[in-house]
């Protein structure tokens, strides 16, 4: 059994909460006491059916206003998979929440109201999913019951969407006609749409291949913590604790420690004091090296064969998440895996229109929920990868230097190899 992490985006009107409620309800993840709580709140829809959206709208303010203000996480399991849902609100002002939820997701469910077809919001959610490197998209054409389960309505929407989706980087796109309210094609295949011969949503979620979504090619092991027991039994023990964020590590592998460039060989790969044959992404392990090298938190252990370099300069897409605008020259803290360094936004190259993917040039500042392309320079050299090549080593966050709040999410686009460090080597 493995794990599929997926995001659902959309507004209350699209029936997103109803869809999640339906998935949880039909896979029997909802308990009697939770149902009673919904019943006793007295909220039912016009057909007298229970309002399943109440299962996902958790906070008092949300229930009072009938909105979702933050990413909520929900869980369900079938005999085939464990599922983690990041439920993100769909209103335009909540781009930052969708970006947050999408950052950890491998699949995105995008809801289209069959009566309205592909809307600006559909495009926006698809574009954000694509920018965040989500490999699998599922377009659920919802409320099919309200268009008489008409095949031609469905076909037209699929056609429109395919026209638009040519510019997306996500290549695995699946279309499913559903009625979240009535349960058609959610868990069981619908009998009302015999013209559709694909899987139900749950069937698709259970079989979409995700193990290949982990990058096993590029070896990246950021050191989080150094284990030095100082006991009699483990007198000289020095273990580098971290997570294999991509790649595979084995005993005997020749490695380089970056940024220092020191080389050594892996003496052992361990977990909980026991030796392992190998470690691969996303395992958390301890590496011991043959040589006594100086390694601390923030260093990255990579394999020698990969010929890598660190850099202080790169271009990135940044989703701005703070009410205070971002301006060129802004100094921020940048956290990339277990490294934190100071950074300056040297230039804002353009803004991305998240409804069309068009570039908006000549911008002098970036507002909350904007996505922009910037040039970044860091105080210390980093080992970063282009985000779409290696998601786990291409993302970083920006932190305000005084409030310490997270103000931006960055995705490396191009790594500059003209850095000073290169000249030094």
């Amino acid at each position, binding site marked *: 059994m493995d794990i599929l992490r997926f995001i659902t985006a959309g507004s209350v009107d699209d029936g997103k909460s109803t869809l999640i409620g339906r998935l949880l309800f039909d896979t029997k993840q909802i308990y009697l006491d939770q149902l009673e709580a919904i019943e006793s709140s007295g909220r039912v829809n016009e057909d007298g059916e229970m309002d399943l959206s109440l299962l996902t709208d958790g906070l008092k303010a949300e229930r009072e206003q009938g909105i979702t203000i933050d990413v909520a996480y929900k869980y369900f399991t079938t005999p085939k998979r464990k599922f983690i849902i990041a439920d993100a609100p769909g209103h335009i002002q909540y781009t930052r929440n969708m970006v947050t939820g999408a950052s950890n997701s491998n699949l995105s469910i995008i809801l289209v109201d069959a009566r309205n077809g592909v809307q600006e919001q559909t495009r926006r959610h698809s574009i954000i999913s694509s920018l965040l490197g989500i490999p699998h998209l599922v377009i659920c054409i919802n409320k099919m019951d309200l268009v008489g389960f008409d095949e031609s309505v469905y076909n037209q929407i699929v056609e429109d969407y395919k026209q638009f989706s040519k510019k997306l980087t996500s290549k695995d796109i699946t279309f499913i006609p559903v009625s979240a309210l009535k349960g058609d094609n959610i868990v069981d295949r619908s009998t009302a749409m015999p013209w559709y011969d694909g899987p139900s949503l749950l069937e698709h979620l259970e079989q979409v291949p995700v193990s290949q979504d982990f990058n096993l090619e590029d070896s990246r092991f950021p050191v989080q*913590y150094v284990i030095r027991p100082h006991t009699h039994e483990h007198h000289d023990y020095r273990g580098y604790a971290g997570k294999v964020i991509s790649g595979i590590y084995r005993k005997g592998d020749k490695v380089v420690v970056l940024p220092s460039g020191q080389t050594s060989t892996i003496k052992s790969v361990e977990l909980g004091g026991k030796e392992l044959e190998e470690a691969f992404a996303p395992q*958390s392990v301890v590496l011991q090296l043959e040589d006594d090298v100086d390694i601390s938190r923030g260093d990255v252990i990579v394999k020698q064969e990969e010929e890598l370099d660190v850099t202080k300069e790169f271009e990135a897409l940044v989703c701005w998440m703070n009410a205070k605008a971002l301006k060129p020259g802004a100094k921020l803290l940048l956290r990339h895996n277990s490294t934190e360094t100071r950074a300056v936004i040297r230039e804002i190259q353009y803004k991305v229109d998240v409804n069309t993917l068009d570039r908006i040039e000549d911008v002098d500042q970036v507002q909350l929920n904007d996505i922009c392309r910037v040039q970044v320079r860091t105080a210390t050299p980093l080992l970063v990868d282009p985000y779409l090549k290696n998601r786990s080593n291409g993302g970083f966050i920006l932190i305000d230097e005084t409030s310490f709040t997270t103000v931006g999410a960055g995705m490396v686009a191009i790594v500059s190899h003209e850095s000073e460090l290169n000249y030094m080597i």
Partner: protein
Amino acid sequence: MTKRYLDYLDQLEAEAIHIMREVAGQFQKPALLFSGGKDSITLVRLAEKAFRPGKFPFPLVHIDTGHNFPEAIKYRDELAEKLGEKLVVRHVEDTIKKQNLSEPVGRYASRNGLQTYTLLETIEEFGFDCCIGGARRDEEKARAKERIFSVRDEFGQWDPKRQRPELWNIYNGRIAQGENVRAFPISNWTELDVWNYIKRENITLPNIYFTHERECLVRDGKLMATSDFIYREPEDEVVTRKVRFRTVGDMTCTAAVESVAYDIDSVIAEILDSKISERGATRIDDKLTETAMEDRKKGGYF
């Protein structure tokens, strides 16, 4: 193409270890909140995986209401002894005396809410900048929205509207003087995941998690263990039943469930079959109002 497969429990374990090591790497003075319940027992096993053969970079901290199950206290002391790790225990009783707090009275009297005062006092006493807790997002709707690194102000308060966005597995533990962080490594685990992990890791639990005969009060349809601490009226019905505890907290607010499950496998089978959620079945404190947990968290609770 190279292929590897990591089972879901290994994935959850890897994520939790990574979070614990981020706590160790980012904070000066962390602590692990240990209650003697299965979730914090799981945290301890994860800490062993994260830091052995080294020592834990934090002590285990127990906020003792004085109304805990003796079995859980005995288990706590034996575990700390066996691990060779530091255990800090602070008592709600002492806080009540020191701060001149009123002991809750009446039918639903429980010191559960008072734990917050002792926790904040303990955080201040030791200067803890991060407390690792065993809360899970599947437990309760307010918890479903809390971050893995959850920043609390100097009063320990959680403000759901001012949470930091949390992306990828990059955790922002930067805080101002006086603030602290609650870190939740098993946020993405469900009750069943915890039990399956306990089974896989062959972890011993306090025996109250398994069936035993116990004298209970029947209160609002729930079975409450009889003890000196629970409020009792002459007309309260007292029964002896085969029960187990699905969660282990304070005796005054943790109900038992009727059960014949005698080992981990039968507990797992029982949960799979259960029609009532974990907290719904056992927690009196969540039932009092619809937003009980949200309100307690805003006030500094775990």
